[in-house]
Structures are given as structure tokens and as C-alpha cells.
């Protein structure tokens, strides 16, 4: 008989990054009791890594901006398979969510007239990203964290959720263990918000921290929720490539926003060679115009380095494959060149990009004010996730909500830089608001003790197998190699079928992983449990990617390199079938209302 403590809340939030914290604040201030579970210490979540800023059409730096332009930019970036309603809500509500942060103590960079400064970013027509140097994510999480602790919620740090508990199809609790001691706890709640972030750890090269193991995706999937758009993964074009131990760590798009250019080993600015037709009217015709754009000239158009991330990532991939890469298998990102344009450029770069200066200086012993960086694509963000109602963020399971990266819909086939931090606060707030409402309208639910006990027994199984079991690190590592090689930036049917075969093998090995020792702070055991989530998520990515026989946004098929109109009419959905196997379906996109179609058309010119 498993023993466990029980905690009971009206609303339980799983995850304390930007979305989870924002949801928790909203729920707590609406008068319900709130519990917040996070895998790390409070304030350490992967949100701290976000650099460039949060997109909100406040029109501080260019008064031509409005929610209409932001909405159209987001839809175009997502190649029109976004959930239009989420894109609309996001564009309309982001400005208020950003201003509210200032009232909670955030200190953004300023415009000359004293307002929040906004910077240019890829795919955004006007300067739109509220930012703090290149550490905007830290500012967001610290602001929310410091505000949240005064709202009366209970925070359970360093806890990991292993299973969702349902009652008659409604989500009513989670089983979790504390990492410090390995004790199990039941968290019973009237409503649950998943805000667990991404899945980057399924890949070898990723910008994600260890936490990005797709927990929310997998928990929801195993409980019967629908996931959509799992084939759409964003490979950020610029991750560090050297030294090997930091491979994948993000180099902010802000470097390009401040005038940084991409060059191959021949010194050529290759991004000018391949500009997609639908972006041609908005792209600079020569380097001089591109430079003027980065310096705030409103009559200039953006340089091709600021095209959408999927496109830039593929161009870099192409240069490397063609043998025109840098010594360590990337390309060159050069900001030092601006000394030709700016007096005292070294101080300017250090002021505009302090974290990047610091990161390269300390980790690669390279001074970005003097030398070009080496960069290459890194697995950064999953557009796909838990299917939610646009307004309430409730999943297809009653009482289960999702927000942030683990939810899906706003980004379509590709996310624009800066839309993630604003997504967190817009939909984090909504998730918290509607979870609290749900909790008020629905009574406490019954918890099946048997289900709790089974979840605990399953989580402890690696100890039962002990030293004779498989090494969990090895299985995780093999999975990462497979996803990197076979379901990466450029995909084919044959390779992805091979990946599925291997994933089946990994699942079998994962069922045999064993660990020894005490339960407290046992990293091997934690890895063994994370593995289940990574495997479910990897299978969902591979199956969805096989089904989308076209190329769109973050999903590129070498065997189907073109966009196909028919595929713009649905999302690919995966769900756990009654027999336990993963099932796929194509669900039609909700039709866009005419007035929003007009907005998209008017912005196309």
C-alpha cells in the first residue's frame, strides 16, 4: 500500500514559468485557493532564457502599429494554420498584459519620451518587442514571481508530476513526488492548469534546459486529451555551435535586430540569395537598406536575416551542407562589423547585447565586439501541444487547462520571435481566470485511491528493477540522437518511419530501466520518469510529421518540399486510442470570420 500526503486546492497550476505564474496570479486574485507546483526552484524556469522581448502592438516606436498588424503578422508567420481566435485575442490583449507588468515592478528599456521601448524582430512589421536588453525573460519571470508570492498561493518547489487523476472524464488531481526526498503527494483540485513548457530535450541539440521534457504534453495525452500541430517544431536559426558542451544554447535574434549579419565561409551574405515571394515586398533590397532598418529608419525594409526563423534555419542548414560552413559546422554571425557604421561600436554592442557579450566571453572565450560568432540551428520551441479552447484555454478534458508552450493554436506552423512571452501572459491570465471560474462552478471531485496507488507503484518500478535494468541516461541519449537525425529540420518519410521503429524499441527499453540507491534527489530516477514523457511526445511528433505530406513553417519535407493548399484546411491531431495506441486525425480549422480575413488581406501589401 503506497503512502502519500494530500494537498487540496481550488486551482492547481503545474509549472512556474511565465504562463504558470501568470495563471496562478490571476486565479489567486480572483479569490480561490491556489497551489503551484514547479520542477525547479521558483524563478529558475526556462522562461529566464528568453532574450529578445515580448511582442505587443503598443505602437510606441512606430504609430502605424496596431493589433490588426500584429494579428496579420502572426497569421502569416504561422502560415495560416493558426487558431485565428487565439491570434486575435493575443494581438488585442498583449499591450495591456505588458503595461500591467510595469505596475508590478518590471523595468523595461525606455524610449526617448520615457515610454516602454520596442525593438524590431523577425516577422514583425514594426518595432514591437518590449524588452530589457537581452534578458527580457528574466525580467518577466522575476516580476511575476515577486508579485505572485504576495497573493497568497502555496508554492511547491522541486516537485515533478507523474500522472493526472481523472474522475468520470474530469481532471481532479495529480500525483507528484518531491525531488528532494522522493516522497509522493496527491494534489487534489477542482481545476488544473498545465503550464509545463516545451519538449526540446527530445533532441540532441536544443536551447531547452533539462526541464523541457514535454511533461504537460504527455500527461494530457495519457489522460486522453487531444494534441495538435505536433509536427511543427521551431529550430531557432542561431544557437551556439562551439564549444561542444554549450552547443544549442540560444543566441538571441536581437543580435540580428541590432544589425548583425549572417555570412558563410566565403564571406557572402547568403540570406540575400533566397527571399520567399510573400516576404519580398517587406524585405530590404540591399545591405544598406537593411542596416538603416535596424537603426530605426521607418522608410527602410528589414534585412533578410530577420525573415522567419524556419526560413533562416533552413538557409543556414543549406550553407553548411554545401560545404560553406564555419569551422565547427555553423555559419558566421557578425555584429562586430558595425564598427564601420557606429563610433564606439564596442561599447554600443555591450550595452545593447550584454548577455550575449557575457555568454560568448565566458563560454567560448570570444569577444563579439571584435569577432564574428559561429552559430547554427537549435531545437527551440514546439508550436504543437494541447488542444485548447481559444477563449478559456480548457483542453478537451473538462477541468484541465493549458497555457504557454504546452498549449497549441496561436502559432500555427511557425512562431514569431517575441510572440512567446506575450503568449505566456495573455493566455496564462486567461487560463487562470477560467480555471478559477470552473473551480467556483464545480464542486470538489472524488479521487480514486487505486489510481493514485497505481501511479506511485509505476513511478517506483525503476527501483524494483535495480542495477540489472537499462541505464536511463543511455536510452534518453539514444532517443535524442534519433530525433535529431531523423525528425529534424529536413524530414523524409523513410527516415521518420525508421524513427518510429526505433522509438518502439526505446519504449521497450524504457520499460526495463532500473536505478539503485536512495530516492532523494536521485537524478537517474528522475531521468527514468522523464523518459516516458519524451517517448510519447517524440512518437506524436514523428507520426504527425509523417501525415503532413507538404512543407509548411517549422515542418520541412524533402520528399514534399512545397506547400499544398489542402493542408492549410486542417490541423493534425493525435489522441490516445481506446486500445492504448496513438491515433491520428485531421481536424478542420475553424473558419476565419470575414472581418479578420479582410485584416489579413489589407496587411498583405
Amino acid at each position, binding site marked *: 500500500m503506497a503512502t502519500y500526503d494530500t494537498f487540496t486546492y481550488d486551482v492547481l497550476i503545474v509549472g512556474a514559468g511565465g504562463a504558470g505564474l501568470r495563471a496562478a496570479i490571476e486565479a489567486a486574485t480572483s479569490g480561490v485557493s491556489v497551489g503551484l507546483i514547479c520542477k525547479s526552484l521558483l524563478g529558475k524556469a*526556462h522562461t529566464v532564457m528568453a532574450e529578445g522581448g515580448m511582442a505587443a502592438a503598443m505602437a510606441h516606436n512606430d504609430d502605424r502599429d496596431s493589433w490588426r498588424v500584429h494579428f496579420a503578422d502572426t497569421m502569416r508567420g504561422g502560415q495560416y494554420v493558426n487558431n485565428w481566435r487565439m491570434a486575435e485575442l493575443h494581438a488585442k490583449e498583449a499591450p495591456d498584459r505588458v503595461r500591467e507588468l510595469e505596475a508590478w515592478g518590471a523595468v523595461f*528599456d525606455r524610449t526617448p519620451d520615457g515610454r516602454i521601448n520596442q525593438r524590431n524582430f523577425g516577422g514583425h512589421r514594426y518595432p514591437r518587442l518590449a524588452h530589457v536588453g537581452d534578458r527580457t525573460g528574466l525580467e518577466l519571470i522575476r516580476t511575476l514571481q515577486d508579485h505572485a508570492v504576495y497573493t497568497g498561493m502555496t508554492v511547491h518547489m522541486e516537485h515533478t508530476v507523474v500522472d493526472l487523476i481523472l474522475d468520470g472524464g474530469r481532471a481532479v488531481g495529480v500525483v507528484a513526488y518531491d525531488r528532494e526526498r522522493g516522497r509522493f503527494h496527491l494534489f487534489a483540485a477542482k481545476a488544473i492548469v498545465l503550464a509545463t513548457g516545451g519538449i526540446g530535450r527530445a533532441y540532441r541539440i536544443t536551447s531547452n534546459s533539462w526541464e523541457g521534457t514535454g511533461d504537460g504534453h504527455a500527461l494530457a495525452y495519457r489522460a486522453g486529451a487531444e494534441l495538435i500541430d505536433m509536427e511543427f517544431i521551431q529550430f531557432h536559426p542561431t544557437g551556439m555551435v562551439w564549444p561542444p558542451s554549450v552547443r544549442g544554447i540560444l543566441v538571441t535574434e536581437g543580435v540580428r535586430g541590432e544589425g548583425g549579419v549572417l555570412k558563410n565561409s566565403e564571406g557572402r551574405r547568403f540570406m540575400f540569395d533566397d527571399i520567399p515571394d510573400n516576404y519580398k515586398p517587406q524585405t530590404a533590397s540591399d545591405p544598406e537598406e537593411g542596416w538603416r532598418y535596424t537603426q530605426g529608419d521607418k522608410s527602410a525594409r528589414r534585412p533578410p536575416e530577420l525573415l522567419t526563423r524556419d526560413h533562416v534555419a533552413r538557409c543556414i542548414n543549406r550553407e553548411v551542407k554545401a560545404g560553406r560552413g564555419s569551422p565547427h559546422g555553423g555559419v558566421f554571425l557578425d555584429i562586430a562589423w558595425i564598427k564601420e557604421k557606429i563610433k564606439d561600436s564596442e561599447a554600443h554592442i555591450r550595452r545593447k547585447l550584454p548577455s550575449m557579450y557575457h555568454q560568448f566571453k565566458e563560454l567560448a572565450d570570444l569577444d563579439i565586439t571584435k569577432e564574428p560568432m559561429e552559430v547554427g540551428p537549435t531545437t527551440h520551441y514546439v508550436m504543437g501541444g494541447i488542444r485548447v479552447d481559444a477563449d478559456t484555454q480548457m483542453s478537451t478534458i473538462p477541468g484541465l487547462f493549458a497555457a504557454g508552450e504546452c498549449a497549441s493554436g496561436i502559432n500555427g506552423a511557425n512562431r514569431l520571435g517575441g510572440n512567446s512571452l506575450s503568449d505566456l501572459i495573455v493566455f496564462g491570465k486567461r487560463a487562470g481566470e477560467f480555471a478559477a471560474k470552473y473551480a467556483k462552478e464545480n464542486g470538489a471531485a472524488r479521487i480514486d485511491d487505486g489510481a493514485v496507488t497505481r501511479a506511485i507503484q509505476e513511478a517506483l518500478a525503476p527501483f524494483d528493477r535495480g542495477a540489472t535494468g537499462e541505464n536511463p541516461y543511455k536510452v534518453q541519449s539514444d532517443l535524442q540522437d534519433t530525433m535529431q537525425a531523423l525528425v529534424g529540420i529536413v524530414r523524409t518519410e523513410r527516415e521518420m518511419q525508421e524513427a518510429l521503429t526505433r522509438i518502439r524499441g526505446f519504449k521497450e527499453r524504457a520499460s526495463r530501466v532500473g536505478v539503485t540507491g536512495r530516492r532523494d534527489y536521485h537524478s537517474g530516477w528522475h531521468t527514468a520518469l522523464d523518459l516516458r514523457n519524451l517517448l510519447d511526445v517524440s512518437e506524436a511528433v514523428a507520426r504527425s510529421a509523417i501525415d503532413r505530406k507538404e512543407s509548411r513553417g517549422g515542418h520541412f519535407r524533402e520528399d514534399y518540399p512545397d506547400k499544398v493548399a489542402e493542408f492549410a484546411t486542417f490541423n493534425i491531431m493525435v489522441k490516445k486510442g481506446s486500445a492504448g495506441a496513438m491515433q491520428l486525425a485531421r481536424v478542420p480549422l475553424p473558419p476565419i470570420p470575414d472581418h479578420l480575413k479582410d485584416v489579413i488581406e489589407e496587411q498583405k501589401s
Partner: protein
Amino acid sequence: MAKSATFKLWRTHPEGDGTFQTFHTEVTDGMVVLDVVHKIQAEQAPDLAVRWNCKAGKCGSCSAEINGKPRLMCMTRLSQVNLLEPVTVEPMRAFPPVKDLVTDVSWNFRVKKAITKFKPRAADAKDGTWRMQQRDVDRVQEFRKCIECFLCQDVCHVLRDHHKHEEFIGPRFFVYAANLEMNPIDAGDRVPELKEQHGIGYCNITKCCTKVCPEHIHITDNAIIPLKERVVDRYFDPITKLLRIFQ
């Protein structure tokens, strides 16, 4: 180029105390100390406890004492340590041990809650927003770079040697208080609590905290000394004292 190195990692025993355990492992150019710890974990000691997260010096989770110096494991390159000698890695000593390299830092979270929260003054503009010049927020932005690694708390002798945890909030929270006090739109007043409850008088400005800060925040010069000055101005300045009598 792979070469061999010797690492002595602190391991706690179930009874509570601990000892260094020696590991020999292969290392390559460009690795950081956290890479070596992970490699040992994956190959030799799967139950080794280490707290980490972003591995890019931005989250402040992997604080430890490397060859006796408080540092982030993820930002300490092997080229910065002498590999001809064994490298020691042990947990922060100013906090209670949890297991191996992991310590219980929860005291820091409790301390923060005791500081008067941010309280904005009335908005400057009709739309509920404020106007601030960049030069007025520069100094606050320096404090807001803090990643809460607590290395400054670890090295501070008031906490580490004198255990004044109940009377003294430590450098991290003076930086936090300074960030609130110097925020151009904050209307809160934390001077009395800094003097009475937060023990700012205990700091005798040895600047150890500034030296270990991975974000290079000028903790002593820019945060603690100006706060001390505010306390002095309020409570010990003879003219102010005189004025208060006549108020």
C-alpha cells in the same frame, strides 16, 4: 583533445555528514565543470545529486564551491581550473545540505517575502502608464540582472560564519531592496525595516559578495552603501534629527 582529470565531489551520507569521493574521467576542450559532473553522473554515479537548469549562467541554479571558491558550475570552464591537481566541487556551505551538491536555499525565499513589496505611485499618463527616462532606470536595471544564485549569500561572513539568518537578509536582498527603493515609480518606504529587521548595519563592506557575483553587479558600492546612507540620513544625521524634533 581528450585528457584525463580527477574530480573530488562532495557526497553526503544517509546519516547526515559527508566526504569527498574521487572520480577519474576524460575531459575535452571547452567543457565546463557542470559538464564533468554530468558525465560522472551518467557514467559512474547515477544517484549523484546536482541542481542545475539552464546551463547558460542565466538561472542561477548550479551554485557550488569549486576548489573552495563560490561559483556557478555552468560558467566555470576547465581552462580556468588547474587540472594537474584534483578539482574539488562541494555544495554552498552557508546553507543546510540536502544531498551531495544540493543545498536547502528555502531561507532565501522566506526572507524575500518579508521585504515590503513594490508599490507604484499614481500613474503619470491617462492610460495608466508612467514616464521614465533610460538614465533613471539604468541603476535599477543593474540590480535586476540578479539571477538569484545566492553565491553572495554563501560568501557573506555575517551568514556563513556568524549565522545571523534571523537578523540579516544578506547581499542578495539588499540588492533586491535597492531595486525597489531606487525604482523611479516606487512609493514604498523600506528604510525603517532595513535598519530594524533586515540588519543592514551588520554589513561591514568587505565586498566579498561583489567579488563572487557572476552578473558582476556592484553589490556593495551601488546597492548596500547607498542603502546604508539612506538609513544614516534618516536616523543618524544631526540636522535631520533636529528637524524631526521640531516637526
